[in-house]
């Protein structure tokens, strides 16, 4: 069952993430260089790290799917990538706001991490259309897994490439994103926010899968009832979908 531990997970998410944001707002010192706008860091960077982790996790689950052909892994991979794309949108918007606050522009091409993220995001935006354009569910899962594996490997390589392209990274950001130069007062809320964001991701990931499973089981029950009533194909074939078909 995907819904197991959903309640403690959501509670922990609220406590940790809420606590992290409260700490970030009240106890974390104001950055001497960027001032108050540096506070965006506590929501933007954890979101980005978790989104990238979700993409890589989706790739790992895709490898498992290709090995075992167990639809469970395809569902996990699909849901992880799906959630990461949503988080990715948040990363790009908050990143734009931060860039605007810090440097007065909505997008900073010299900021290698932001550029890399945009490229990765654009790549994963095609995941859904790709799945949707393959009708056969088994083939859809297999092809999507091949895409997820390749794209998962692309994530780290892309970051190396973009970083090489622009040797002069903005010094202010370098201090902030590596975490090494952070004072302890900033480190605690940051790592707390990172943990909270991970918990949020896991919670939503499980919630999404629970929903998919429930819908699949319902469809299965409907079909069985229709068959028992002698009404073959009353519900018709499952609607065309980009999501993995859960058969119950």
């Amino acid at each position, binding site marked *: 069952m995907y819904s197991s531990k959903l309640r403690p997970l959501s509670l922990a998410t609220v406590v940790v993430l809420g606590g992290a944001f409260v700490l970030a707002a009240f106890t974390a010192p104001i950055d001497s260089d960027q001032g*108050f*706008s540096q506070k965006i860091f506590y*929501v933007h960077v954890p979101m980005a790290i978790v989104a990238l982790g979700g993409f890589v996790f989706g790739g790992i689950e895709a490898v498992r799917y290709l090995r075992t052909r167990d639809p469970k892994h395809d569902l996990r991979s699909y849901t992880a990538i799906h959630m990461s794309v*949503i988080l990715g*949108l948040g990363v790009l918007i908050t990143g734009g706001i931060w860039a605007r606050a810090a440097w007065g522009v909505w997008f900073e091409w010299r900021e290698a991490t932001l550029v890399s993220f945009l490229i990765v995001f654009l790549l994963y935006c095609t995941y859904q259309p790709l799945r949707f354009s393959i009708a056969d569910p088994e083939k859809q899962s297999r092809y999507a897994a091949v895409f997820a594996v390749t794209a998962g490997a692309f994530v780290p390589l892309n970051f190396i490439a973009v970083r090489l392209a622009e040797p002069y990274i903005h010094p202010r950001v370098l201090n902030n994103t590596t975490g090494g130069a952070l004072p302890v007062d900033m480190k605690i809320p940051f790592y707390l926010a990172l943990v909270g964001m991970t918990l949020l991701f896991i919670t939503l990931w499980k919630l999404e899968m629970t929903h998919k499973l*429930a819908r699949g089981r319902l469809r299965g029950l409907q079909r069985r009832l229709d068959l028992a*009533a002698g009404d073959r194909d009353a519900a018709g074939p499952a609607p065309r979908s980009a999501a993995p078909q859960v058969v119950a």
Partner: protein
Amino acid sequence: MTVLAANIPDNSGYVVAAYLVFLLLLIIYLAITAYRLTGLERRIGDLTAQVDAAERSPADDGADDAATTDPSGVREHSA
């Protein structure tokens, strides 16, 4: 509260906006989930009604032939 307000610098709008974006994403996700939940609920309702009807009609068949007046049992008789 007034002390807090005095401590907030001028460019705090961007920070608020960034956190609002995060909140907005969560709320939109919540709304979509709620919308999909109503769909699930409707399907469960349909299924329940169907099961109710199926349970009622065989009982009617066994009891008396005259009980076929139940409108919900019509479909099951064709099986």
